[in-house]
């Protein structure tokens, strides 16, 4: 039984405002195993980007981590002083952001940015770092890397820039890469290329990926496991194929049904009534209860806790209560009707 690479326990992120405290992430827990790809999917406002930022300690004031722990390779990193955290960022955890145009400084050449990052984390000389940088650009598939390394970001196309960003994230050899919507700003055909590059390189370097996106298709093609987030909480975690084919949480089930597919031309897509609540108006109990077709009285009062219903499969829903005496799953209820 291997130790998890990253362990998040009861993480809560809050934003104090003059109208009260807004909870962006509420009491979430999950693990990432070394070398695996965990997809974190959710709609806007679900808190997935906030989770990534919280792990990297990049939350803007006045937001703060109100409670919980983030444990990287057995060591707590959520309470480290800034200087220690800086050593972790880049070296142990790499980050890929959505917009390649703003991730790279337009005023500096690619070579300068890569070499600076490499030398911050690794004791290499200028020439050694440059050689490593060219090698990385080659790995991510930039043609004529030894010449193009001296170009500026604006001389690259969007897809090329994102490859450079991937190279930057991996240059210090991190064990975990957090990718926040890495393909959203790219064209469809380029998306596929970038996903391939990311998967291949991370597999080669033994790095795990936390892939944050709203695009379930990307997760289906890339991830091993997926965590579905809703209103700052994790609704369900499990292997990708299982969650897609047989989602247990009513929200995940509705979400999978709402996504149009290339296959059959359906008459209607599954429609979940209403929309995700604003952070200032999260309902009491289970956040999904106003929109859930299986809602019970308990759902309106208490927040459901995560329950492991199978190895590697976890749901937070009162249809799957912890003690398991009356297991009224969706399937059993349907049989009863």
């Amino acid at each position: 039984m291997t130790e998890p690479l990253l362990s998040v326990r009861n993480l809560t992120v809050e934003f104090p405002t003059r109208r009260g405290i807004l909870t962006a992430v509420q009491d979430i827990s999950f693990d990432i195993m070394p070398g695996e790809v965990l997809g974190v999917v959710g709609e806007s406002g679900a808190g997935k980007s906030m989770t990534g930022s919280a792990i990297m300690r990049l939350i803007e004031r006045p937001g703060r981590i109100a409670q919980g722990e983030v444990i990287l390779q057995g060591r707590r990193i959520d309470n480290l002083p800034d200087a220690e955290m800086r050593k972790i960022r880049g070296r142990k955890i790499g980050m890929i952001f959505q917009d390649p145009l703003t991730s790279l400084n337009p005023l500096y050449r690619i070579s300068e940015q890569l070499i600076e990052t490499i030398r911050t984390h690794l004791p290499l000389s200028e020439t050694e770092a440059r050689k490593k940088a060219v090698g990385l650009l080659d790995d991510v598939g930039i043609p004529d890397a030894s010449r193009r390394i001296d170009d500026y970001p604006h001389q690259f196309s969007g897809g090329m820039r994102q490859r450079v960003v991937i190279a930057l994230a991996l240059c210090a050899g991190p064990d975990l890469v957090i990718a926040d919507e890495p393909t959203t700003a790219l064209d469809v055909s380029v998306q596929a290329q970038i996903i391939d590059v990311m998967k291949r390189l991370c597999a080669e370097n033994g790095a795990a990926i936390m892939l944050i996106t709203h695009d379930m298709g990307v997760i289906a093609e890339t991830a091993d496991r997926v965590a579905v987030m809703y209103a700052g909480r994790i609704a369900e975690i499990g292997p990708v194929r299982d969650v897609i084919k047989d989602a247990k949480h009513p929200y995940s089930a509705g979400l999978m049904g709402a996504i149009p597919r290339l296959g059959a031309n359906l008459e209607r897509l599954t429609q979940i009534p209403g929309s995700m609540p604003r952070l200032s108006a999260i309902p009491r109990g289970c956040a999904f209860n106003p929109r859930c077709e299986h809602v019970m009285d308990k759902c309106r009062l208490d927040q459901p806790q995560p329950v492991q219903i199978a190895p590697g499969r976890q749901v937070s829903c009162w249809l799957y209560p912890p003690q398991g005496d009356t297991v009224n799953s969706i399937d059993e209820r349907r049989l009863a009707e």
Partner: protein
Amino acid sequence: MTQTLLNVRGLSRRFDVSQPWLNRKIEGTGKLYVNAVDDVSFTVKQGETFALVGESGSGKSTIARLIVGLLEPSKGDIIFDGTSLKNGLKGAKARALRQRFQMIFQDPLASLNPRWRVFDIVAEPLRVFERSMDKRAQRLRVGELLTLVGLAPEDGIKFPHQFSGGQRQRIAIARALAANPDFIVCDEPTSALDVSVQAQILNLMKDLQKDLGLTYVFISHNLQVVRHMANDIGVLYLGRLAEVAEAGALFDAPQHPYTRMLLDAVPDIEMTGRRRKQVEGEIPSPIDPPSGCAFHPRCPLANDRCKREIPKVINGVACHAVQEGRAA
């Protein structure tokens, strides 16, 4: 036999992206043009949905604006229900024609005036086209429209920023329907929305189409959405039509190499873990497009003729390889 409502013929639009006059004189460069849309032709039948699909630089948004008259074509013609729109719309006849088509935009926040109340926004087409309606009749009609799109009449007194993205798009749909058009151009209407909200809006649009007999021209980059909505699909690449086909045929048996590549590249949740061919290259810049067939640098079937000659659309496909029988 459904009649043709919209007939687009040889539509082209060129943009002048030259440097300012002084710079050109000093640097000795000539004028620079971008052919955003080049010789595009298609027909749309009444009551059906025609989708235009493409990535960035394909010209799909430009075509949308050309159809509704926000831009004028450089070449070619747009014939709406028998009337040519080429020379713009002027006069009383124009007003009658304008009433029949409307547009829904991509960004629901930007398409509603943030300073106006929802009632005024939805009632604007009534004020322009149905001038004889009195205030009370307007209030009734707006209330009807808001209820039709799934909101409440009381929402009419609120401002756009008080609504979510999906609700704003419903308001935009209500506004588009106010003057009873029969033709709506939808420019990426759900691209800015979350998946579950997108499902609501797409279902609503389909229901309304059936109820009111609407004709849609649906612009999108999302192939799955297009699969769900369209009867016929046109695939654009750098301003030119690569393939035009009925939806089922396009997805089951795509002919153009670009269409095949696109369908292969799209991440889809049905097809977890399928093997895919590596996709080559990126979309070239529209300012300096490749010669001949714009797709030839990335096409596995390109030959010399592809580098020299722009393929014409024959039997719905613009590809030399297909015409020469080289495509498998």
